[in-house]
């Protein structure tokens, strides 16, 4: 049987191309990991296997603190982003209101706004706020993890909406109607019917927002102040060559963890969507 899209030669060429691309994509990551186990500088020849860099990073308070800060920022900003994302998804899908296309454009616009522009915008507004507070009350708020959280919620929000909307779209309105007919209040119907069914999307939205925030450098670099998050700390330490192997060790751990989290989120979301697809749509 001959294929209509590709001749055998084209097919072989494409397989080769695809394999080379996979090598190109993964080789740098693998090299990063290899040198985190290398007993020496980050250069050839390899000097032997060691776990020393991992041991050092686990006893380096600066690294651990920055990782902890990032975990805190990511947890809080993702929770807020998911909560706001649920509200926005319901409004956009289940309600009619004036100016809907404008609202939807606003919610998605952080996807295309350059992070450097958004970062400095928040820097300017918080500086202005502090200046105002100092002149009127003599105290000020300053930059810190709270300002990073505020920024990360804005950039995570469109991703949470994009994750929640497809599943919410498949949840039939009939279920809410049924809850209503059985005498449930709006809150009860949301809490007992919609929310549990929406849970897979909420979990994966949280995980996507979490990894986005945990890794985010551009915005955090303007807003972290004296409390560097992990990417900000990493960036600053890159100037110190002796620190590099240790940083590669942390990086490898972070890479593997974030890859695991995101893949789990993606697989979970697709499974849930497939499962609901048939059952929850009325006659579709």
């Amino acid at each position: 049987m001959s294929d209509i899209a590709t001749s055998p030669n084209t097919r072989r060429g494409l397989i080769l191309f695809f394999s080379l691309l996979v090598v190109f994509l993964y080789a740098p990551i693998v090299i990063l990991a290899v040198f985190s186990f290398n007993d020496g500088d980050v250069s050839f020849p390899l000097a032997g296997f060691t776990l020393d860099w991992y041991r050092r990073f686990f006893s380096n308070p600066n690294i651990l603190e920055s990782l902890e800060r990032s975990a805190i920022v990511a947890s809080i900003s993702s929770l807020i982003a998911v909560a706001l994302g649920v509200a926005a998804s319901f409004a956009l899908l289940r309600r009619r209101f004036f100016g809907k296309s404008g609202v939807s454009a606003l919610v998605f616009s952080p996807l295309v706004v350059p992070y450097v522009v958004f970062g400095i915008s928040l820097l300017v507004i918080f500086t202005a706020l502090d200046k105002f507070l100092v002149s009127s009350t003599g105290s000020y708020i300053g930059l810190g993890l709270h300002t990073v959280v505020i920024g990360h919620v804005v950039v995570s929000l469109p991703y949470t909406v994009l994750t929640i909307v497809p599943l919410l779209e498949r949840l039939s309105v009939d279920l809410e109607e049924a809850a209503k007919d059985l005498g449930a209040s709006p809150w009860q119907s949301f809490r007992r019917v919609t929310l549990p069914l929406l849970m897979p999307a909420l979990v994966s939205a949280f995980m996507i927002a979490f990894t986005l925030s945990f890794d985010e450098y551009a915005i955090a670099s303007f807003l972290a102040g004296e409390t560097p998050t992990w990417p900000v700390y990493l960036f600053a330490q890159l100037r110190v060559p002796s620190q590099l192997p240790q940083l590669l060790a942390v990086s490898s751990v972070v890479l593997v963890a974030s890859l695991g989290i995101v893949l789990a989120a993606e697989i979970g979301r697709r499974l849930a969507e497939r499962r609901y697809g048939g059952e929850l749509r009325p006659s579709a």
Partner: protein
Amino acid sequence: MATTREVTTTDRAWRRHDRRGTVGLLAGPLLWLLLFFVIPVAFVAAYSVGAVTLFPTDTGVVSLASWERLLTGGSVYMSLFWKSIRMSLTVSAVVVLLAYPTGYFLALCVRRRKYVLLLLIIAPFLTSYLLRVLAWKVILGDAGVINSFLTTTGITDEPVSWLLYSQFTVMLVLAYIWVPFVALPVFVSLENLDRSLLEAAADLGASRFRTFVRVTLPLSLSGIFAAFLFVFIPTIGEFVTPLLVGGTSGYMFGNSIQDLFTKGLDWQTGSTLAFFLLAVVAALMTVFGRFLRMRAVVQ
């Protein structure tokens, strides 16, 4: 009787809920975006025309002077802007050239495990951006992986210095970063292609090449265009990659914004540049935004 009353109470609660609900649902997200996104950006616009003063050096005179300096008389920032545009265009073109065969292969040649292979390509995009740039710094540096390999094996005596800190490096790394992401829109557009059209072309005697040029390629143009924009828009404002691997020759427009805010402390010029960049992106989105069907890509 009792049931009727119950139902009406529920009905009333739901009607009240529907009316107030919309406002309640929108209040949170809109308030957050207004306070921490719209107002700050508007503030930057105001700063750029001197309507805001934060530092003693700010003039406090409302004028378009900083915009005039940026847009007229061959300003250094404008030439930097055009350089960034050229770099972003090159990167976008290279990325599309790499992503198209990948998407084509996955959509039209692979039958089983299609989505596993797609995930294999996309997965790197989901890991740390900063670490993937760092990996290239480690690979290309003077004492890095490639140079230490070249010198210890005796292929070259001196490390090849242009590997790191050049415009080429910035474009290489940016292409590396964006290929996985962009394979997706190309794949989606080819996957949704009606296979019977290809069969029809074959039945009518078209060669595979002719079928590709006259049927497949035109039908996947929207995917190609979306892919192009998906790379172009975020890379115009790029500053992290040039900072890590660009040196002075890889310096981009985004770097000058960052420098004006963190090193030069000329926030008014910085605000002008930032708002200019935002206006360019907004204009691009207004003209081409309809090609970016975000939802189609995510599902």
